[in-house]
């Protein structure tokens, strides 16, 4: 009789190369995603040690963090800041030197690394995936063991095709019931983080499971797994089902023909055994969820839209001061200066459709200084334009930008000014994340669109 295993156990077992003499396990890596910010020191280290890439074709690179979202046709020359330009040029040079495929700034396939992986079929079930970026957890939506790593590990993976680590514990987040109308997986994941806290998932891999998952699209599952890291978990997972397989069919780097059938047969086994044991389990009922908005400077500080900012206490005093909020204030009363729809959390086509649907023929409120949409990839942008979504956004008063990480972390010129308050579909409301002194509130794309129209947070369900 075989021991019942979780999905994470299976992925771990299928990639365990050996256990090193010092006790660390070596896990084989199938896909390595690279971007300009966390790779240069790794490439440099590789060169200095006269090492090469262990398996070149597992690596794929794109520039996303530093790229401007205007005048994309200028390519690298469109980057005004010398040091940022240097970083993108260094990625180009390194990819040339080490023969790594690069979706460069003007490539239609360029985009946020976690959007283009799945889009291209570079992300497949059963893979181990790493990237020097904590939101690599996104790819776990495909039942791939996907983790963010630091630059030393980027170099380690380049040189050895393995990651040295110890196995994490198993945590299952059981989602039951059906999402009410107007509620998205962003609301779900903010609730999950609220339940787990920002450190509750540390040392664990989170599997999102339960009957509620079946109705979630792949893009919705990516939003869930993307923010597993905001609960402290390096990896999030969702088991394979028909939705997964349908999404991948025909993607450029997905297997084809007979190989496709072989792959699908294996992929269908990528789920936790019915009697597998989890170290910890939490349950969230989807049927009574409300839209959520964060009020603090940690992603676990959120409230339902019709709720209030919590009363000031020793724990939240600093966050409320930074955010310029009074304890007890209704969430709906908070006025907004800027709207950002984008990021690896919420810049896929379904996100843009959801926001555009709320907008309809409505206009951005007069008190909102700027509202922008930054699609997750060049292909998402093209698809949205083919559907006419760009026209809906423009007509409402939104700026329609080119793909990249943009204001999620403000490494490019898209930044908040000190004191500005932003309704953002991104993943982190840390102090200064979107610009020094800026105030970030996390919410879903539909809620961001509703906030744009109202000029303050409001219940999107009243706009549908």
């Amino acid at each position, binding site marked *: 009789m075989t021991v019942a295993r979780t999905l994470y156990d299976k992925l771990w077992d*299928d990639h365990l190369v*050996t256990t090193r003499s*010092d006790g660390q396990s*070596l896990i084989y890596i199938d896909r390595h995603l690279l971007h300009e*910010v966390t790779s240069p020191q790794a490439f440099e280290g590789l060169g200095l*040690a006269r090492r090469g890439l262990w398996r070149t074709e597992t690596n794929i690179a794109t520039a996303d963090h530093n790229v401007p979202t205007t005048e994309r046709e200028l390519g690298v020359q469109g980057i005004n800041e010398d040091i940022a330009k240097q970083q993108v040029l260094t990625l180009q040079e390194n990819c040339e030197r080490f023969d790594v495929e690069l979706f460069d700034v003007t490539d239609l396939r360029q985009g946020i690394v976690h959007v283009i992986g799945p889009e291209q079929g570079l992300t497949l079930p059963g893979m181990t995936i790493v990237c020097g970026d904590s939101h690599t957890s996104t790819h776990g939506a495909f039942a791939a063991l996907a983790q963010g790593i630091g630059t030393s590990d980027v170099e380690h993976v380049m040189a050895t095709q393995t990651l040295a680590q110890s196995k994490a514990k198993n945590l299952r987040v059981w989602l039951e019931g059906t999402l009410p109308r107007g509620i998205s997986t962003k609301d779900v994941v903010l609730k999950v983080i609220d339940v787990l806290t920002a450190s509750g998932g540390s040392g664990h891999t989170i599997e999102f499971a339960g009957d509620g998952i079946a109705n979630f699209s792949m893009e919705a599952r990516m939003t869930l797994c993307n923010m597993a890291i905001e609960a402290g978990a390096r990896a999030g997972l969702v088991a394979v089902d028909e939705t997964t397989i349908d999404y991948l069919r025909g993607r450029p780097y997905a297997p084809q023909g007979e190989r496709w059938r072989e792959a699908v047969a294996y992929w269908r086994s990528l789920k936790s055994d019915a009697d597998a044991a989890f170290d910890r389990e939490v349950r969230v009922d989807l049927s009574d969820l409300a839209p959520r908005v964060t009020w603090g400077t940690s992603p676990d500080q959120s409230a339902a839209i019709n709720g209030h900012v919590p009363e000031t206490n020793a724990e939240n005093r600093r966050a409320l001061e930074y955010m310029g909020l009074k304890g007890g204030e209704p969430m709906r009363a908070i006025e907004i200066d800027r709207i950002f729809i984008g990021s690896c959390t919420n810049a896929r086509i379904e996100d843009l459709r959801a926001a555009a649907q709320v907008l309809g023929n409505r206009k951005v409120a007069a008190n909102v200084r700027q509202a922008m949409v930054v699609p997750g990839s060049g292909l998402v942008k093209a698809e949205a334009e083919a559907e006419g979504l760009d026209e809906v956004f423009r007509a409402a008063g939104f700026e329609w930008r080119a793909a990249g990480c943009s204001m999620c972390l403000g*490494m490019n010129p898209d930044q908040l000014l000190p004191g500005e308050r932003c309704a953002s579909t991104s993943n982190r409301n*840390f102090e*200064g*994340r979107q610009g020094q002194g800026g105030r970030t509130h996390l919410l879903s794309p539909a809620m961001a669109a509703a906030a744009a129209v109202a000029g303050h947070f409001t219940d999107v369900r009243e706009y549908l």
Partner: protein
Amino acid sequence: MQAFTEVKGLVAPLDRANIDTDQIIPKQFLKSIKRTGFGAHLFDAWRFLDAGVLGMAPATRRTNPEFVLNEPRHRGAPILLAGENFGCGSSREHAVWALMEYGFRSVIAPSFADIFTSNCFKNGLLPVALPAQVVAALMGECQNTQGFTLAIDLEACEVRHEDGRTFAFQIKASDRQRLLQGLDEIGLSLAHASDIKSFEARHKSRFPWLFENQPCRT
């Protein structure tokens, strides 16, 4: 990697929970393609009142007198004492580079984020997790005692208080060994190159599609 055996010295108290790597080293400094130059910008938005740009010398900046690390009594401290979930958020290893270049050799906190912990052990920064009530007590003492010092002994896996008390901490044997010896992790793993090659061959026969139709520079 810099080896670590023992550190003894001043402790700087940073009594906040969930200190994320965006605070430790803000995004504008990640544009550097080097591993150095980050210490001057450690906790930049908290340490300084003016907006920081990569390469600005700290002496030319407007320092924030209210930020604890700017208090003269904490200058040169090799040990940072902080709240739970230290190093959460972004995977940026620049955070560890910044802490070390600034002069820290160890951080003591009730808990640390996973990726940050992993990054620490690639560079020689020792994350010491102690029970929350112990950290809280040390935090209070440190804030109220001029010249408060601790000693951290990695051989013995203990933190020693000046008054003779010791606090044991846990660390994975492999991490401890690498840190004590300052071992290069890639070298250690490449000693298993033949294991990796034979695994790869088995992997290819089990999952051939992972070895076909791969990205290729044209």
